[in-house]
């Protein structure tokens, strides 16, 4: 399985940067918006009046939607080779850069401080920023999520870590009623710039309660944004974008993707939260996917290419709102859609996406949309059973073959 995943990474590197050039934007506006008047005590005990480190604004911001291979013709990336790291280190890098940049950013979660994070995403941060900024909480998801939201109402930018996304079900009331709705019910008075992140998804025999996919439960909460990262490049970019966003963002990571190694640029980059990523352009069929299923799809794509098909693979990344522009352009080109997701079949992201595409692009479809999702069962412990709860590459190949008849 691990070998398959790394092979998948090689396949993802082939892409075009044509779309991404259109979406250059600067973050200078957000720098000036964040001028606060509070004095913040840093971990070294010195009070700092004023917040912005204006030195950052002189750095060139690269806003490619996808990482480019060094030998590809993209002119947008400056020709530094970048550095190699694992996905959890990329998350940490993004988090650390944002914490350096803005003293209002703080981390709240279980075992994020002294322990360094159960998946090492926050390792070393408590030593650098102190115990108040990287806060170890007791096991009380409902109330520490509520606390983060209350702190966000005053202008802090907390990053809440759920040790496993499934635990955040305990905080559902706070996320749904307070996080999502306070901006609206207060008539715009309060902003909730909170980031809620954590690993979810089916792992390696972790059992039913630790293999939850919460994107389906959260997707109808109005007022929040949801993104799912899948590579080290987009993990760092999405983490930074989520922290800078004024809206509450839920960043879905995956337990099995933390050790993906990738080369990412040295210079600072922030990705667009609502944009999908074109992983592999093609002509015959559009395959929409996100998170870990991207790698299953790419593995299936290799088989499909050998069989003569030309699938277009899009990593939708933004789960709420959907990037209907990129998806729409793809549907208009290929006229066939397969959605491959890890969510449950009933009421999952795939179900909503199917409805959206049908509603908006019905005229362009030559065949009904095929949605491959996980089975509607609690994830069993036994390895063979667990394997068949999620979509496997062989099933993807079979579905494409049937669709493209």
């Amino acid at each position, binding site marked *: 399985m691990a070998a398959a995943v790394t092979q998948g990474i090689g396949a993802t590197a082939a892409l075009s940067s044509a779309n991404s050039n259109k979406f250059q934007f600067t973050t200078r506006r957000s720098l000036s918006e964040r001028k606060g008047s509070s004095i913040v005590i840093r971990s070294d005990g010195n009070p700092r009046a004023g917040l912005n480190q204006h030195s950052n604004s002189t750095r060139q911001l690269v806003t490619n939607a996808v990482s480019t291979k060094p030998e590809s013709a993209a002119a947008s990336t400056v020709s530094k080779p970048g550095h190699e790291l694992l996905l959890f280190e990329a998350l940490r890098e993004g988090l650390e850069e944002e914490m350096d940049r803005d003293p209002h950013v703080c981390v709240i979660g279980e075992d994020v401080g002294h322990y360094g994070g159960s998946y090492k995403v926050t390792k070393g941060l408590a030593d650098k920023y102190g115990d*108040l900024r990287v806060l170890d909480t007791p096991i009380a998801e409902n109330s520490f999520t509520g606390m983060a939201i209350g702190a966000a109402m005053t202008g802090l930018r907390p990053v809440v870590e759920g040790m496993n996304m499934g635990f955040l079900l305990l905080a559902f009331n706070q996320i749904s009623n307070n996080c999502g709705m306070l901006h609206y019910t207060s008539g715009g008075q309060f902003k909730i710039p909170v980031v809620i992140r954590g690993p979810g998804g089916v792992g390696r025999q972790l059992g039913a309660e630790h293999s939850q996919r919460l994107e389906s439960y959260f997707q109808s909460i109005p007022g929040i944004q949801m993104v799912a990262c899948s590579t080290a490049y987009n993990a760092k970019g999405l983490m930074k974008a989520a922290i800078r966003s*004024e809206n509450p963002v839920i960043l879905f990571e995956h337990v099995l993707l933390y050790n993906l190694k990738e080369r990412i640029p040295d210079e600072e980059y922030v990705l667009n939260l609502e944009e999908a990523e074109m992983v592999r352009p093609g002509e015959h069929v559009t395959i929409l996917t996100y998170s870990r299923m991207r790698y299953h799809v790419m593995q299936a794509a290799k088989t499909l290419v050998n069989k003569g098909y030309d699938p277009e693979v899009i990593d939708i990344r933004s789960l709420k709102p959907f990037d209907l522009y990129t998806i729409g352009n793809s549907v208009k080109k290929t006229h066939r859609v397969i959605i491959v997701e890890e969510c449950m079949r009933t009421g999952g992201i795939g179900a909503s996406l199917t409805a959206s595409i049908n509603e908006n692009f019905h005229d362009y479809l030559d065949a009904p949309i095929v949605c491959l999702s996980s089975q509607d069962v609690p994830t069993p412990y036994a390895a063979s059973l667990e394997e068949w709860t999620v979509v496997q590459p062989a099933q993807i190949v079979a579905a494409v073959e049937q669709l493209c008849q």
Partner: protein
Amino acid sequence: MAQLTRRTTDLLKPFSAALSSTRLLTTTSTTPITVETSLPFTGHRIDPPSRTVETTPQELMSFFRDMALMRRMEIAADSLYKAKLIRGFCHLYDGQEAVAVGMEAAITKKDCIITAYRDHCIFIGRGGTLLQCFSELMGRKDGCSKGKGGSMHFYKKESGFYGGHGIVGAQVPLGCGLAFAQKYSKDENVTFAMYGDGAANQGQLFEALNMAALWDLPAILVCENNHYGMGTAEWRAAKSPSYYKRGDYVPGLKVDGMDAFAVKQACKFAKEHVLKNGPIILEMDTYRYHGHSMSDPGSTYRTRDEISGVRQERDPVERIRKLVLSHDLATEKELKDIEKEVRKEVDEAIAQAKESPMPDPSELFTNVYVKGYGVEAFGADRKELKAVLP
């Protein structure tokens, strides 16, 4: 007696003019008056403050006026609800005004208050206008939340009023978050997180209290104990109805919530305490005359005698009225005039609020997201397909 005073004032017009001018001086004067609270405070793991409270004539008169205003506003809201101009849920605060007014007297607008859904009077105390209040209740554009919040979602960010929350108990972790932010920015302000006796049994309250105590957050948890959680009396819901003791390791203070000066003293004491020592629980022993909300008659779980008994013996506005009269700061007539004036003010605000238009239909989709990194909330027709970038 009233006739006598009238005749004397007629005869002594020149003198009465002089008298009234001296009285005017006293109502704005700041010469201290000492008042005793009705009951001594009871402390849990803490030495309670003294019963003697310093106040001034100006403060006494402002207490009377503010509480009369709040009382009048809630009764007007009652009639508006029965006239079907206010819909949904409407939770009225009359009887509990002393808590709102006493708390405001002890703190600044930089301190934060967060409460549950019985928030109309706290909003007024924090500086909200009657127009904003009634417009919001009637769902009009001029409301404090642009008509999109309703009775349970009043907010006023500039004066540190964080609402206005419908889910019982969920505001307490939010309040501890406000206190966390205050500690983070070291600005020497405190947060009052208010909840009721019904919410006191919520788990998230104890979780939040644990964290507040662990990190010494400047959070004051105020339990407005009106003895009924909707229809359930406190002795039927809580094994231990001494809510000020329920913090266990966190100190607590039991306060007579119908005495505005007791509330003021307790809040002042609490503010000084938490800035040094971490959280404290204040239990305000208070009472609501109306039912839980307008859909609850309020008499199926308590007797009318009980309600009228509290109204006769412990009414907060009456207590201030008696204090004013006994310190000779105003006559009966003047107090009645203030009440008439307040009534007129409320009626004018209601008339103005009725004129205010309903929110524009486009407001349905505003404020769902903050415009920032190019988020566009899709309308029902989903015509917008492309995310808008700044």
